[in-house]
């Protein structure tokens, strides 16, 4: 043990420039990522700002049991998980397929154009996107018109709870698919070209090359992206929900984070402790999912996040 410590000291002295460079990042994580975790203790208190962290009363797991008995507990959990699962199931393959397609384009000018255009929605503010969606999905909006032309009923699509998750996930895919291809494209660009040449000699066509070379080579990247997504299953962002939900579709739209927002920041009587308890609960589940996902991926194809 002592030896190790000594080794570390020598190592730090030797590479002090490198350690100096990494210092700001380490500090950033300590101050802005680990420091605030201390605030999670208010989940076990009846926190009153005026009394502060140290003066508030400890109440144990009161807020957690309150959440499990909450009328809306099952509903927000179900909505959160469903929206997450749909996003993973549809948006990951969409990005991968799109990346494969872009990768096959030989004309570099055309390729660049396609890429740039597909990145653009990523930079549009979510408020603007949701404003457009509301317009398009109204009873006389363009999407509704197409929908009713194809045989659907003409009504405000945002007022139908059954459609909410589709709208949420589909618009999400439209907005992020281009941006999400970046990481896959970079993985593809690092594939050894000799493999393709060898395959050409063997008479492999484009699909065969895609299937037997490209996809296996980017599989580690896909695995990492998948595990990272698992870590966010319980945390669907509240911004889009706040912008798109209404009393008619809320039963399908309310997720954990929007519920926490309503209870804490949006309310005139903020329930700090309760919403912290809910937040802490989701973080723990997320952590469990990442660990579990990592284990399973390692077992299945031998590569994981750590």
């Amino acid at each position, binding site marked *: 043990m002592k030896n190790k410590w000594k080794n570390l000291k020598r190592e730090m002295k030797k590479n002090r420039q490198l350690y100096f460079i990494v210092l700001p990042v380490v500090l950033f994580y300590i101050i802005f990522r680990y420091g605030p975790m201390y605030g999670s203790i208010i989940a076990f208190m009846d926190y009153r700002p005026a009394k502060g962290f140290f003066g508030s009363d400890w109440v144990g797991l009161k807020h957690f049991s309150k959440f499990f008995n909450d009328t809306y507990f099952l509903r927000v959990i179900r909505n959160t998980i469903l929206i997450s699962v749909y996003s993973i199931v549809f948006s990951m393959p969409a990005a991968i397929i799109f990346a494969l397609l872009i990768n096959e384009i030989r004309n570099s000018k055309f390729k660049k154009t396609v890429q740039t255009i597909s990145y653009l929605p990523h930079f549009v503010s979510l408020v603007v996107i949701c404003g457009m969606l509301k317009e398009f999905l109204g009873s006389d909006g363009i999407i509704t018109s197409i929908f009713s032309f194809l045989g659907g009923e003409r009504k405000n699509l945002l007022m139908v709870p059954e459609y909410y998750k589709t709208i949420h996930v589909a618009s999400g895919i439209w907005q992020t698919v281009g941006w999400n291809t970046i990481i896959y494209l970079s993985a593809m660009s690092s594939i050894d070209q000799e493999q393709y040449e060898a395959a050409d000699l063997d008479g492999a066509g484009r699909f065969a090359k895609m299937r037997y070379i490209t996809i296996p080579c980017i599989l580690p990247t896909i695995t990492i992206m998948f595990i990272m997504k698992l870590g966010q299953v319980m945390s669907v962002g509240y911004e889009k929900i706040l912008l798109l939900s209404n*009393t008619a579709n809320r039963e399908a739209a309310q997720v954990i984070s929007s519920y926490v927002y309503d209870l804490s*920041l949006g309310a005139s009587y903020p329930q700090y402790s309760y919403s912290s308890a809910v937040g802490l609960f989701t973080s723990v589940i997320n952590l469990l999912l990442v660990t579990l996902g990592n284990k399973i991926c390692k077992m299945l194809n031998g590569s994981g996040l750590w």
Partner: protein
Amino acid sequence: MKNKQLWKSLSACALATVLVAGCLTGCGKEPANNEATSESKVASEQSTETAQPTEEVKEIVELTYWSALDANTQASLTSFNDMEMLKVAQEVMSVDIDFTHPASGTETEQFNLKMTNLNLEDVMEYSWGSYPGGASQAIADGIIIDLAPYIEKGYAPNYKKILDENPHIAQQVTTDKGEIWAFAPISLNSVDVTAGYIIREDFLKEVNMESPVTIADWEAVLTAFKEQLGIEKPLTLQTGGLIGVNSYFAGAFDTYPGYYLRDGKVQYGYIDDNYKEYLTTMAKWYKDGLIDQDVFGNDTKTVSNNILTDKSGAFFGYIGSGIGTIMTNAKETNPDLSLIGTSFPVMKEGDVAKYMPYSWNVKAGGQAAITTKCPEEKIEAAMAYLDYWYSEEGSLLKNFGVEGLSYNMVNGEPQYSDEVLKNPDGLSIAHALGKYTRASQATVGLIDRRYYEQYYQIPQQVDAMNLWNANTAPAIEVKLPSIAPSEADAEELAGLNAALNTYVQEESTKFIMGLRGLDEFDDFVATLKNSYNVERALEIQQAAYEAYISK
């Protein structure tokens, strides 16, 4: 060669300087404030000795001030620090105020965050009545100070005069313990109803009908709009206008979706039998296409657009942003468009409407309180500054701005100048008022009726104002004052209300859209009583109400 090196090192120096300067400006405020504290200490020591307003040149007291920045002000200014009339007031009162604003739309959020880190300004404008546990709890928690002793000392003579002369106003800014928590926006003989149902007068003429009064009239008019004129969505509203705070059609059925008063008892309208009647009618209107089918997805913008583009004939809106803005916008594209206010709906001809968007003499928002962060020696100056807005001179400044710039005296009456009414930079009247005055904002000071009379430039606006304010007395019978349950109760109530609101809104939506039959209304009420504990919520409200009226 040498030159090049010199150049390099010079530019490096320059860069470093810029960086350091950047850091310094970021935190440059602090030292300045500290200096001011010691200065003002001297000043206030002098003045407390004499205990009389001194004639000698006062030293400038620096104060920090937190306030929402009004949307109309945002159109031309980024901060109240740049508003002319506020500069004048500061000069008169020998204070130097540094304003801080939360980003618009995030006021509650920012305030809640402020309460967690207690990074307070000297003076803060907020709806203090909605502080958890009420304003009295904010004082007990050491957030704001009790102004009563300072008012007794004579630090705020103008405000004291108003409170002494109007006990019902004093009641609305005094806690059960007799503490006074803020300098509140007060309207004396002013306009207390600025919103209501607005209808297209030109459509009425086309179908040859009178402005509707009863529910039956409304149904006839909306049907005529639909059938004779082909109006797609005759009545356009937002969610709140049908099953929430602005649902005054329910008033015709003698109920209100939310808490209200009947014979001194707090009621929750959603469990009334009358509410079932109301829902039945609304569901029918919705089914018949009289109500906008998108109603639950609408926002203010869609409602205005529906009116502007002849898709709708009636809506719930404000005299300013409803009648005024829409008619102004329609001037070129749709010159025939004329909007008039209608009286609040009743059941039978001759009934008196009780339910209307009446706002109390003391406005809930924008109440300026002095926080505990304000040093003792600055309190007198802060009080004097806030009190100034209740003087004749200050009131004129608040409502009309600086003389010669935004108003002129005509026959002894202030009259907005062309700078406001026909702004050369093309600002609308509301935006120009937001640039030069705080007339339209809930903030410390008096709200002047003359502001409304001049702001409403279109005859239809004045008519609506007179119609809606003709008989507001019945509203006081049913409107719940801003009551504050005790801290423990407030937390419980917040929890109950959060769940209740979600449930009643979602179910009411289903009832109106016809997704749930009204024969299930009794189940709905039973669920509210059994699973959502609505009776406990009413009990808390009733106790708080009784504490309010007994003070």
